[in-house]
């Protein structure tokens, strides 16, 4: 199954919607694509995970690397609309502390805009 992402908002915070499964098979290509995009601009990121059906540890790694990258420029990552399973994995992995879950897009924008 493929993974695709689309940029919903390109100014700070950048909002990226992820569609598909983030597993060992396609995490690498997704990582490359996201990093390619972020090589042009660095801003706070909000991921819309509404269409993310599954995330494995390879997917967790992508987020860990993103957090690591953005930490250098003091930028933050947030997420919206994770489904129950994705949310649980994000909680267990401890990513929750680094990627706050916002109730909706507006809240995420308000929260990140000034950073």
């Amino acid at each position, binding site marked *: 199954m493929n993974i695709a992402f689309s940029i919903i908002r390109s100014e700070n915070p950048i909002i990226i919607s992820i569609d598909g499964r983030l597993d*060992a098979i396609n995490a690498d290509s997704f990582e490359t694509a996201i990093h390619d995009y972020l090589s042009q601009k660095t801003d706070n990121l909000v991921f819309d995970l509404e269409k993310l059906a599954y995330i*494995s*540890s*390879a997917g*967790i*790694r992508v987020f*860990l*690397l993103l*957090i*690591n990258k953005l*930490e250098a420029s003091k930028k933050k990552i947030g997420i919206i609309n994770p489904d129950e399973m994705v949310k*649980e994995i994000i*909680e*267990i*992995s*401890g*990513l*929750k*502390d*680094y990627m706050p879950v916002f109730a909706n897009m507006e809240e995420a924008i308000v929260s990140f805009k000034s950073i």
Partner: protein
Amino acid sequence: MTRVKNKSFAFYLSVYILSIVILIFTFFLIYNYTVSRKLLLKNVEENARHLSNAAVNQIESYFKCIEKTAQSTALFMAKTDTLHYSSHQILKDILSSNPEIYGNCLAFKPYISNGQTIYNAPYCYKNDKQLCYKNLADKSYDYLSWDWYRIPAEENRKIWSEPYYDEGGGNVLMTTFSVPIYKSYADTGSFMGVLTADVSLQWLNELLSNIKIYDSAYAFLISSSGRILSHPQADLIMKENILDLAKETDNTEFQIILQHMMQGKTGFEKVQKAFSEKKSWIYYTSLANNTWSLGFVIPESDLYADLQLLNKDLFYILISGIILLIGFILLIANKLTKPVRKLAAMMHKDSEVFISMPIPEIKESTEIVMLNDSFRYLQKELNRYIAHLKDVTIAKERIESELQIASKLQLSMLPDANKADVYKNRIKITSYMQAAKEVGGDFYDYFFIDPSHLFFAIGDVSGKGMGAALFMSSTITLLRAYAKIEGNDLCRILQLTSDYLQQNNPEKYFVTLFTGILSLETKELTYLNAGHNYPVILTENAEIILINHTHMLPLGIIKPTRISPSHITLHANDALFLYTDGVTEAMNEKQALFGTQSLLALLKNYAHTDKGKLIPDVCKALETFTATAPQQDDMTMLCLQLNNSESNQYLHLSFTDIQNISILTDIQHQIENFLTQKEVPAKSMHRLMLVLEELITNAFKYGFSNIANKTIEINIHVDSTHIEVEYKDNSRAFNTNSAIAKSSSTSPELNTMGKRGFYIIDKMTDTFTYKRENNKNISSFKIIKNL
């Protein structure tokens, strides 16, 4: 390879080609028959018409000849004066010179001579080839009343009479041509008499039967009244009216033809049957000079005899052609397939034989040469491939053997199950690990950092295979090393491990980790969860508690901040179950995951009090679930079960920042309490205290001076026979062994302070060992429980 029983190439070639050939031939044969029949029929009709015409002409010429003869004789006779006397000779001459004439008569018109009416009718005829003479001027014959005389005499015309039996004349069946004789030519008034020429029907019949137009064709002659004049069946002649005959047989087709004949028409028609039952064609025409009609019956079989002959020949040609063709096909197919069979036979050899076997030179058709070339190419490619495969196999085997070594090495990093046995009277530990590949990224570890504190960890490195395995081995080594150095400080252990991993992680692996330190004394569990699946506590009452707290991100990528461990106090007989996501994400053939809920449900319903069987039971459930589906991830489980009955056999005392020796009272008090509980006899208790007191006093006297933070740690374990004691302090090192050695060789009176102390120790203990580790003096000794 099993050979399918198929028909040969020759068989298929024969069947296909022959089917087509037979089809074409059959079509050709039918076409040929139809067309040639049509052509032939036309031809046959023409031919029959011609033949019949010729026959008719022949017959007519006979009749004409007879008529001419009679007519010219009549003219000659008219001029003959002495006719009455010479007629006899003339008739004789005519008869002998005309074989077709049976008989002839000169019938004079009666005349009056001497008052008497004179009848004169000299008649000559053939009887058995003898010429006979008679005069018909006989009252009994009365020639004047016969048609042959009467009609020419009265009507002044020549006629052919209807056939009749010449009773009293020729005495045969005959027909008679009669011509009137006139004295003056064409003067009917000068009528002298009638000249006749008889034709015997027998002769006529012979004449017609000699006309052969086809093998079984025959001619018949009928008069205008339907009387049969000539027919091969002699009994029909004159006796039958042909119409009656046709009516008898109820043959309307034939009747119509006969009516046409009687009307003097000409035609060529087909009838289903004529006189006989055969299908026939009838050609009929009237004879020009009278009202007779001549018919030729030509059986159809005769007409088509040639056609049938032709078809018969064609059929034989076809059959011999097909036979020839089969032979030819078999020959060709055999020749064509011979090299193929040869090649096929080669393929049935073992592959080793095949690749080294010479492929024969074949100079058959292009395709076969191509096939042969393909075989040669295949052989070459196979050789090349096998050589390549050998190299690859060698390389693969090398890698595999190295992987085997790596796998063994990795397993050897995990705690030995025997080690768990050593702890079994304090805590039951069971574990399971199944790597998805030869080496995996999962691991677990447990060991005692001191006699009452168990350090344990379970972890999962992201990714699989060799990289993950190397990262795992780093992690497990670091944890173990830092745990040994840092002891109880879980945060510090993880901090250090994390730092190291993060700094040496070019591939950006990360490891999720659950670590804990379990105090067997207090049953307090101190733990840290770095992004790992939540472990489960199974209580004695079969309740489950999920330790759902994550303290930090997985280790390796991001430096952790603000770590503070959590604490939970377990109860006697509680068990802690830890696992990696390979368990909850085990996949079945329908790609469904086993799931955390299934695992929790399984644990919730776990009835065994012996949690030692928990992991095997979970394994069984996983096997049932996954069935034959291959697993993508490593699976690891660790189960720690506290052992109530044995746990309080331990006493752990630890004192830090000790000021002076007064601590001894405290120590003494606690130990006495513990040993009393354990029903240790006073004598043994006393001995133990003596030894400890000696060790502590020695430390204060010789070792603790200038040590800022004086620490003492005492672990006591009581089993059925012995009391085991481990004493640690951070005083300076001293040579105990030499002291003991001296004490045993000298008398007790030589009591320097230290020496006397070690003498006591030596006397009081069953075994005694001393070691120096981590700047600590560690003394261990055993005392027999029931002295």
